[in-house]
């Protein structure tokens, strides 16, 4: 779906997306990294478990809600990748902390 214009970016950041390691680039949002990784669906809706993905990328649509570092309902377009960040697709309302 998307690609980087600069095929040789400088500062790499290792994150995991749905458990799979991925080389993101410093300064990218979690949403951008996820879109680049080729994933279609970043969450399923609580009402009907329909797949959704980021829509506005500016923080006003709340479609890009994902589980980031174990916390659900985080807008992936408002979070920046950091070393070791764990990004997961959110199923419905997201799990409760233990």
């Amino acid at each position: 779906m998307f690609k980087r214009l600069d095929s040789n970016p400088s500062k790499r950041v290792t994150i995991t997306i749905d458990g799979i390691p991925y080389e993101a680039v410093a300064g990218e949002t979690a949403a951008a990294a996820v879109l680049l990784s080729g994933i279609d669906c970043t969450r399923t809706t609580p009402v009907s478990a329909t797949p959704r993905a980021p829509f506005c990328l500016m923080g006003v649509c709340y479609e890009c809600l994902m589980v980031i570092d174990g916390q659900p309902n985080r807008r992936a377009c408002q979070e920046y990748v950091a070393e070791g960040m764990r990004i997961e697709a959110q199923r419905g309302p997201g799990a409760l902390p233990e």
Partner: protein
Amino acid sequence: MKTDTLIIGGGLMGCSTALQLAKRGARCVILDKDSPGRHASGVNAGGLRRLNRHPAEIPLSVASAEMWHDIESLVDNDCDTRFPGQIRVAENREDMQKLQERAALVRDLGYAHEEIIERDALYQLVPALTPNCEGALICRDDGYGRPFHALNAFRRKACSLGVECHSAARVDQIDRDRKEWRVITPKGEYRAPVLVNCAGAWAGPIAATLGEPVPLKAGAPMLMISERLPRFIEPVIGAASRKLSFKQMQNGTLLIGGAHMAELDFKQQLTEMNWAKLAVSARTVLALFPQLKDVRIVRTWAGIEAFMPDHLPVISRSSTSAHAYHAFGFSAHGFQMSPVVGKILSQLILDDQTELPIAPFDIRRFRKDR
């Protein structure tokens, strides 16, 4: 426009009364200055609670609970009611003592619906609760509904029986000639032999017009709602020594109340949140459920309610007219009572009597000359 009964206020009390009257063939028109359920009836916490009622309210609340448990046969809609129980948690021995006294009081009045449970039973029912609570007071068949949907169901059923509901019909003037009331609104003039005041926070001026002023104060208790969560709690939670009303709604959101008041500009019908008090509410929730610290609040609001100084409603014939009736002042706990209040008013209006004990709710209790 002429009818049998004019009901001022299209909230639950008004719609419930209209429904009961219409079931017995009386024609009604409901007048609301906004739209039905715009205020308290549409935005309250939806609690269906007999638990911890003032003794005077208990008989009515118990009767109303029976109606809620069979609400579908009354309004052709289950109003999304659930009955997982309501609980008042005791966090320590002093709390437990208070709750035991309460349980004894209710038993002495001849009612069995409030029960003490010990630690084990409490954690069976509410495993998510922070450890080290002592026990609780529980009403097992209490629960909650969805206020606007309930209001909608009452209104639709009433309308299907011929009741008319007029919005944007604020009552500007009331007078009476020998045989009937004449009410003037921006929508026109209405006449009926019987007048019912169910105007909620706006009932005071109407009572005053009838020559029976009441010390009604409008207040706006704050509520806040969270994002959706997977289901983790069933009963509605209160606490013996904290202001808390906490429930997980049918759709998984958490509804948190606690009778903290917003800033209210009554004339403009505008509320402003008191964040200091909401912060206290948040701390209260986290004291009992610390694991919820990262749960997000997505919205707050405060519906405008009528408060009486003794926190008891007015459910009463008028004291100045043989043809007027009152049901208002439910002080933020009227939702559960609405089915039975409609029944009571319809009985007062059509039979001039009701078997339920309504003396404590008489409007005359506010008369200065008593």
